[in-house]
């Protein structure tokens, strides 16, 4: 590679400048020289193109080297043509009167020395401002924090089953009446609403009673680390928020009274997700109050252990399905991820002979039987770990038998649609191994 005449020109003119000026700090002089040169060159270029916006343009953001049309803006051709073709990929700028400088100046976007960004948000703020309200003026949500966002993390936990320690969730007895009340107060909460019966029962069992005997006891203190979630059983509590973000000493240190929490109400739910500073102080408003408390580690372990166990169960079930024998562990894990649990009382027809087959089922608990039209006795029995209807994944043939639950059953199910979305057509998976022989033996629902 030889230097182009252009680059020689640049060096020549630098030499001339140096000779003329005889600078004391040579490097600084060269740096300044090139900065100036670049600025000049770019601004000349800007004025030569028909850029829509005078102080900002994509012209310093040329496209790509190459001959294809450019998906990132601009048209095709070689690089010099692209540069000449004007704005290619430009950074949007809404407001021309703000402090954004041109990217062609050395300080593009940055004020020397200081952060120009607002205070970081994140953490546990006090919840002012309506969600996603949009300011008409510039399209930005009002009160939108523009600062860097802090990452959050809970303690890293490993599933009990994987670590071999025998953890079981704590259990604290409650009366039926108490349980009903608790269920009602947490049922609408997004952290609980998706739990299955088992998880729900374990979480309710783990809530521990906490007596707050006197008035004026701080249950949580604004700014402190958060570890527990509380449901009010008896009495009432007052919520205070100090605008400084934490409880301050002296009178008025509590801040403003913002709410009262009555029996059935709850507070401190963020602590169930990760350790963030408390957003408010909560204090008992009378003597003789009672709370139910749940800590983060317990809550997360309950959810994690039950999910982990169910996932492994599903994966081991799936391993047993010959149709899916050629799936990799990763693919089985994806299917396990998408399986949905359904419960049926005894005597329910789960699939009906003659219907179009759309989903397959793994029997998680209980028993079921297959019947064919015209026969009195079941043609097959299913127990935990058995599966049926998997041929629906393969073709649209009608169900060859009905399956009826004998006891209450819990099944995990996945539709053909979901299966194909995740892994593509079953036919291509089938091609990996032979599955033509023995189908009849494996599944009585298969019709030749």
């Amino acid at each position: 590679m030889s230097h182009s005449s252009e680059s020689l020109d640049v060096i020549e003119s630098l030499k001339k400048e140096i000779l003329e000026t005889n600078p004391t700090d040579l490097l600084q002089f060269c740096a300044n020289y090139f900065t100036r040169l670049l600025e000049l060159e770019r601004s000349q270029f800007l004025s030569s193109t028909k850029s829509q916006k005078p102080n900002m343009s994509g012209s310093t953001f040329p496209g790509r080297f190459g001959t294809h049309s450019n998906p990132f803006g601009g048209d095709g051709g070689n690089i010099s043509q692209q540069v000449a073709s004007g704005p290619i990929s430009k950074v949007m700028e809404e407001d021309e009167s703000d402090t954004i400088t041109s990217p062609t100046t050395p300080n593009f976007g940055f004020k020397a020395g200081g952060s120009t960004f607002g205070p970081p948000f994140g953490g546990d703020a006090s919840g002012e401002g309506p969600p996603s309200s949009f300011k008409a003026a510039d399209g930005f949500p009002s009160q939108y924090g523009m600062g860097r966002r802090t990452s959050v993390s809970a303690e890293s936990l490993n599933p009990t089953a994987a670590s071999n320690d025998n953890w079981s969730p704590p259990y604290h007895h409650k009366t039926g009446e108490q349980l009903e009340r608790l269920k009602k107060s947490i049922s609408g909460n997004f952290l609980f609403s998706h739990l299955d019966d088992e998880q729900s029962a374990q979480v309710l069992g783990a809530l521990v009673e906490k007596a707050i005997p006197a008035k004026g006891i701080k249950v949580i203190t604004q700014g402190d680390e958060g570890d527990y979630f509380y449901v009010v059983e008896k009495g009432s509590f007052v919520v205070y928020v100090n605008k400084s973000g934490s409880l301050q000493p002296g009178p008025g240190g509590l801040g403003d009274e913002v709410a009262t929490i009555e029996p059935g109400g709850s507070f401190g739910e963020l602590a169930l997700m990760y350790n963030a500073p408390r957003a408010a102080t909560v204090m008992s408003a009378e003597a003789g109050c009672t709370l139910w408390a749940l800590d983060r580690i317990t809550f997360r372990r309950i959810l994690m252990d039950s999910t982990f166990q169910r996932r492994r169960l599903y994966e081991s079930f799936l391993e047993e399905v010959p149709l899916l024998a050629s799936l990799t562990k990763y693919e089985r894990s994806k299917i396990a991820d998408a399986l949905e649990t359904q419960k049926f009382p005894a005597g329910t027809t789960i699939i009906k002979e003659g219907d179009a087959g759309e989903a397959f089922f793994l029997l998680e608990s209980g028993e079921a039987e297959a019947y064919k039209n015209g026969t009195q006795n079941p043609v097959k029995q299913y127990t935990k770990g058995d599966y049926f209807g998997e041929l629906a994944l393969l073709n649209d043939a009608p169900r060859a038998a009905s399956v009826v639950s004998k006891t209450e059953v819990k099944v995990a199910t996945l539709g053909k649609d979901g299966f194909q979305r995740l892994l593509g057509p079953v036919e291509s998976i089938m091609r990996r191994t032979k599955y033509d022989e023995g189908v009849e033996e494996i599944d009585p629902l298969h019709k030749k």
Partner: protein
Amino acid sequence: MQVHRRISMKIREVADSVFHHGSQSTPSPAEMAQQTEQEKEFIAHFSDVQRPLPPGEVAQNPRNKELGKSSKGLSVRDFELVRTLGTGTFARVWLVRLASPAEEDRDKVFALKVLRKVEVIKLKQVDHVNHERSILADVAGHPFITTLITSFSDHDSLYMLLDYCPGGEVFSYLRKAKRFDENTSRFYAAEIVLILEFLHEREGVAYRDLKPENLLLDAEGHIKLVDFGFAKRLGNSERRRSFGRGFVDKKSGETYTLCGTPEYLAPEVIQSKGHTTAVDWWALGILIYEFLTGYPPFWNSNPIEIYKQIVSKPVHFPTEPAISPEAKDIIRQFCTVDRSKRLGNISGGAARVKEHPFFKGVVWEDVYYRKYRGPIIPPIRYPGDAQCFDTYPDEKVGREVYSDELKRKWEDHFKDF
């Protein structure tokens, strides 16, 4: 070419002598000093022959394998701390140069991430920092991921020496520009798609903290993904499968620790359902939205309200700015609560993402080999120029000490550094 070969041979020699000291007895002070010098030589020149290798060769390449190894000879005294580039809850990243460098290495600069053991333990991030070190070591050499050159430790800190990305955070450019146009957004999104394809499908790694703050620009304006503090190896990588038939991968495909950044958390993370690499595709949807509008789709000053929106509300697009139907579609497909329908996670994986109309016309091979010109060329005046980074206050004095008691309990957990 000749030069390249010479340098790479030299690096190999240095690396061999530095890292393959095997079962030798404790080296003498003179040997230690020599080793330190060799390590300094290695880190000063690692980038001389750095060029993108095909994705399948990144982790296999012998030279890349030398990157990210733990150093036994280096200490923080071998570096001159120039200024802070960023801070986190338990880490601080410094711009550094070699202390007493060779004449030709005077302008060599690096980013040194310093983690205080006490803070790491207190914040229960011991597992996370170990994952970060080992995953960064494995992926060193990918064109769009920060390169871990080496790591070392001393009594109270852990150190990761990384390549310096002088362009600063995409976050800063985004906030300054308020929003990016679709071409700019597409450029960054495309490079991120290649990162996720590599991490998920080749390495089996979920990144878990995608956001503009963690995307840096290199001198040419290409993305470098940084901060692997939440990255986690899951049991589904090509690399693991390639160990052969008998290899049983004991790791499960999902993980449970809630981590990330509130606005970017996927619904399954919030609801503790066990999460997979699918969380990164969700976050990419949020990211493209934020590129195009200047703010994330789910936002509130109270994080609980953000989480309620994430699990229950569809992404809503403002009327201003106008967003193309292709962009809206890819955002909606990424931000799909049902993981069996989420783009990136469904069959075809990243290949399907690349085919989406939003990326129409993109030549992916050219993206990978950095043939597209970056939409923002950082204004860099000299190698160690840090004007693209914000300034940060000094470290607080009076930090907690790493006591002997803590050391007895935890030191073994940090042995890989």
